[in-house]
């Protein structure tokens, strides 16, 4: 009996853990910021600190990891290759720029040393890593992939200039997204 109650509570917990994502999309019926042309579709879904914390808490991330992550601004990027050939993603060719200059994106390689110093369990490290957008990826025809982009928190309005390669001797595809903001930029943001 106790087992059954435990399972029911876990099912409720799973449902609640998915709830913030539902809120994210249900509350705001405007399309997410993005870019689309005949070659690709790029969408950016901002996460507030509360949404991020709720999502990671539900996945058992340790409190110190969540606290460390609250210093950052999260977007989930969704990319679809609409071409009939390969579209090359390389995040080194993405620039986030505000009026004050370039914003710092936190690359995948910067997280493992931090997690090691903080003694973060391998499972949480692994989940966090799989949720990041790959630094480089060749998108096959019609392929759609997504993942998180992490920036230093800022209240500034900024734009993204994302360059996608098409191979040698071919002009890259440039996607531009303007008027981006961290999800809780309007509120008080704690400096890291």
């Amino acid at each position, binding site marked *: 009996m106790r087992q059954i109650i435990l399972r029911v509570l876990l099912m409720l*917990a799973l449902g609640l853990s998915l709830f913030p994502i539902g809120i994210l999309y249900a509350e705001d019926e405007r399309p997410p910021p993005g870019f689309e042309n005949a070659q690709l579709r790029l969408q950016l879904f901002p996460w507030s600190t509360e949404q991020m914390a709720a999502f990671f808490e539900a996945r058992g991330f340790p409190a110190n990891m969540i606290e460390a992550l609250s210093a950052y601004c999260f977007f989930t990027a969704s990319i679809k290759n609409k071409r009939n050939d390969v579209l090359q993603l390389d995040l080194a060719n993405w620039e986030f720029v505000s009026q004050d200059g370039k914003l710092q994106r936190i690359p995948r390689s910067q997280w493992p040393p931090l997690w090691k110093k903080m003694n973060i369990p391998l*499972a949480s490290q*692994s989940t966090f*890593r*799989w949720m990041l957008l790959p630094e480089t990826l060749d998108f096959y025809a019609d392929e759609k*992939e997504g993942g998180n982009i992490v920036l230093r928190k800022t209240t500034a309005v900024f734009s993204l200039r994302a360059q996608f390669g098409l191979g040698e001797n071919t002009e890259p595809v440039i996607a531009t997204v303007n008027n981006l903001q961290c999800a809780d930029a309007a509120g008080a943001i704690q400096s890291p």
Partner: protein
Amino acid sequence: MKKMCNTFSIICCMLISGFVWAEDSPSALLAPKGILSIAAYPAPPLELNDIDGNPFSLAQEKGRWVFVHFWASWCGPCRREMPAIQNMVEKFKKLPLTFAIVNTAEDEDTVFTFLGLLAPDIVSLMDLDGQVTEAWKPRGLPSTYLVDPAGIVRYQALGGRPWDEGEYLRFLTELSAQSAQQN
């Protein structure tokens, strides 16, 4: 009219010969949409316990094609794909195709709850610290590989796929027939 009949006969002959050729030539399998025939490489190690504590080793599956699938409960496409995987597994119960469904870095309660809701008949392998998944270097989650009877990775699926639909079932049936021929 006679000319039309002749043309029709020629097309029919070509189609029939095409079917015969395809059936006789396992290496000429046409992969369905989103399944890439990749440059072959030996499968990385995969030794894990399932959620019930039973051990599984990919190395012991030599002689059969193996469907290796990585998933996590937080991944939206995984959630959409899992019921199709359960339907497919059901259809392959009596065929020589092994399924290695691997959860990446989640605990037993999360996996039990998730599968209980979406695919109660799936018994997932548990990559508790995510290190086996790391070794396979998937493009993202979900990710599926098809490993041949010699332990060589031959195909990779892009994202989630409708595995219980006709072209996918046919393709996997033909692969499992290859396993049967080799045994």
